[in-house]
C-alpha cells in the first residue's frame, strides 16, 4: 500500500488535477472560438493573490483561493474590454502579452518578493494532516497521517475538478452553451440571430480566467512555493497543449490531455536526455493523425451511446404556432368585417 501511495505518485496525481483545471480554463474560452494565451497570467494572479492572503492576511485557504479566482476574473474584465473585440491570432498575441506583463509585475513588486518568489505558503495537505491527527485517523487502514493528508487533498481536488467538469457539461447543453457554439461556428450569423456576441465572448473569457485563478490558487497551496518563472511563456504552451492534445471541442479532451501529458514526462524519465525528443515526436504524430485531438464530438457521441447515458431529449407537445395561426386568422377576419 505504502508503495503505491508514496508522496511522489500522489504529487503527480495532484498536478494532473490542477493541469486538468487549467486545461479546462482554456477550453472554456475556446468554446466561443477565442484562442487566449492568458491562462498562465490569470493563474499567476490567482496564485499570488491566494498565497499573499494566506501568508500575510492569514485567511483560511479555501477563502483565499476563492478570492484569488475572483481577482483573476476582475482582471479579465479589464483586459477583456479591449481584447475580446480582437479575433484569432490578434487575441492570442494580446493575451500572451498580458501574461508577460503580469509576470514582470510580480517579478518587480516588493510584496511578491520579486524573483525569489513566495515560500512557506500554507499547504493544503499540511492543514489536512493536522485534521487527521485531530480526528485520530493516524494509522487508520495502515495509512500514516501524512499520506492521509495527501489523499484527502486529492479527494478535495477531485471534487473541485468534478464541479468544473459538471459546470462545463451543463452550460454546454443550455441556452448559454448554444450561444457559445453559435459564436464559435459563425459569430456574424450568431449576432443576426439575436445573440449579444460581445457579451458572451466576455462572459467566456471571464469565466475561463476565474477557473484559471482557482487553478493558480490551488497550485500555490500545493507546491508551497511560487515564483514568477512558474508562470512564464513555457507554462502557457504547456497548458494550451492539454486541450489541443486531448481534444479541444469537448471538456473531457482537456482532462485526458492533461492526464497523458502530466504522466508522460514521468514515465519517460528513464530516457533522461532523450525524453523531450520522444515527447515532441508524440505531439507531431498526434497532430498529423488526429488534428482535432484524441477526443472529438463524434467520438464522445459514440462513447455516450455505448454507455447508454445519452437519452434523447424529451420534446413536449406545444401548440404555440397553431394558436398563433388561429389568432391571426380571427384578427384578420374581424378586420375585414
Amino acid at each position, binding site marked *: 500500500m505504502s508503495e503505491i501511495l508514496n508522496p511522489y505518485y500522489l504529487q503527480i496525481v495532484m498536478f494532473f488535477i490542477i493541469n486538468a483545471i487549467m486545461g479546462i480554463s482554456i477550453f472554456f474560452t475556446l468554446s466561443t472560438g477565442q484562442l487566449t494565451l492568458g491562462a498562465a497570467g490569470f493563474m499567476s494572479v490567482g496564485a499570488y493573490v491566494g498565497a499573499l492572503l494566506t501568508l500575510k492576511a492569514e485567511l483560511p485557504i479555501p477563502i483565499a483561493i476563492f478570492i484569488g479566482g475572483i481577482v483573476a476574473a476582475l482582471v479579465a474584465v479589464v483586459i477583456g474590454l479591449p481584447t475580446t473585440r480582437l479575433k484569432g491570432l490578434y487575441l492570442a498575441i494580446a493575451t500572451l502579452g498580458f501574461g508577460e506583463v503580469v509576470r514582470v509585475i510580480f517579478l518587480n513588486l516588493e510584496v511578491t518578493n520579486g524573483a525569489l518568489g513566495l515560500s512557506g505558503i500554507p499547504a493544503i495537505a499540511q492543514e489536512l494532516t493536522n485534521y487527521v491527527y485531530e480526528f485520530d485517523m493516524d494509522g487508520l487502514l495502515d495509512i500514516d497521517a501524512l499520506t492521509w493528508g495527501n489523499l484527502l487533498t486529492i479527494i478535495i481536488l477531485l471534487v473541485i475538478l468534478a464541479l468544473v467538469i459538471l459546470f462545463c457539461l451543463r452550460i454546454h447543453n443550455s441556452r448559454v452553451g448554444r450561444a457559445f457554439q453559435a459564436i464559435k461556428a459563425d459569430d456574424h450569423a450568431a449576432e443576426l440571430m439575436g445573440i449579444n456576441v460581445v457579451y458572451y465572448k466576455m462572459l467566456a473569457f471571464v469565466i475561463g480566467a476565474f477557473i484559471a485563478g482557482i487553478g493558480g490558487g490551488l497550485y500555490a497551496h500545493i507546491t508551497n512555493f511560487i515564483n514568477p518563472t512558474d508562470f512564464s511563456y513555457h507554462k502557457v504552451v504547456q497548458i494550451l497543449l492539454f486541450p489541443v492534445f486531448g481534444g479541444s471541442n469537448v471538456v473531457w479532451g482537456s482532462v485526458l490531455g492533461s492526464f497523458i501529458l502530466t504522466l508522460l514526462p514521468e514515465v519517460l524519465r528513464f530516457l533522461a536526455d532523450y525524453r523531450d525528443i520522444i515527447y515532441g515526436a508524440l505531439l507531431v504524430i498526434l497532430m498529423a493523425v488526429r488534428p482535432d485531438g484524441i477526443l472529438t464530438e463524434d467520438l464522445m457521441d459514440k462513447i455516450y451511446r455505448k454507455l447508454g447515458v445519452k437519452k434523447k431529449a*424529451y420534446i413536449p407537445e406545444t401548440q404555440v404556432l397553431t394558436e*398563433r395561426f388561429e389568432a391571426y386568422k380571427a384578427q384578420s377576419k374581424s378586420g375585414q368585417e
Partner: protein
Amino acid sequence: MLLQLDDVSKSFGGVAALTGVTFQVNQGEVFGVIGPNGAGKTTLFNLITGVFPVSTGNIVFDGMNVVGIKPHRTVEMGIARTFQNIRLFGNMTALETVLTGMHCRTGSGVLSSFFRTKRQRVEEERCRGIAYEFLKLVGLEEDAEEVATSLPYGKQRRLEIARALATHPQLILLDEPAAGMNDSETEVLRQLIGKIRDLGITVVVIEHDMALMMNICDRLAVLNFGKKIAEGTPQEIQNHPDVIEAYLGKEE
C-alpha cells in the same frame, strides 16, 4: 406600415451602393425586392438589420428608429433574416439550431443552467416543444436530430428560415431563399412563405426567380445600380418600361 425606408443611401469608400432609396412595407404583406446582381439588394438587408450604419437617410421599424442599433438588438425588436449563402452553425442538430434562434426570447443564464433550476428546466423543455413546432412548419420534423450542415441543400435553406422564425419576428427578411433549388423545392418554399404570412409575419424577400416573385409578392420594388427604379404590384412591375430596360436592355 411596419417598415419605412426614407431616402436611404450607403456608400463604401467612394462607391455608392445605394442612393436615395425610399419605400414602405405594410403589415402582413409579402414585399419583393428584385434587381440585377450588384444592385444593392443585400446591402439593403444589411442596413435594415444594423450590420452597416446608413450613410444618410432613415430606417423606421414599427415606430422605432433602427439606425445606429446593433444587429442583435434589431433581432430583439422583431427583425429576422436568412442569408444568401447558407450560414448554419456547424456541429448543431436541426433542433439545436432552431433553439439557438430562440435565444433572445428566453432568459436563463450561467448560474441557472449550472444549478438546473426548475425555471431553467421548464424553459428548456418548452423551448424544445416550440422549436419542434417550427421544424414541423418547415417540414423538417423527421430531421430534428440530424446535424444541420449534413442536411441536403434545400432542407438547409428551410432550416435557416425556421431558425429565423424562432426569433419570433414581426418582419422576416429572406435573402434569395430559392437560390439553387429545383422546381419542387421552390414549390415547397412558395407554400412555406404563404404559411409565414398566415402567422401574421411580414415578409420582405430578395429573389431572382421571377415566376416565384410574381406569384407570392403583393408588391415589389426594383433596384438597379443602387437606385429604386420602380415600385408596385407584380402587374405594374412587369409592364414598367424602366424595369424591362434594366433586365433586357433598351430597344434600338
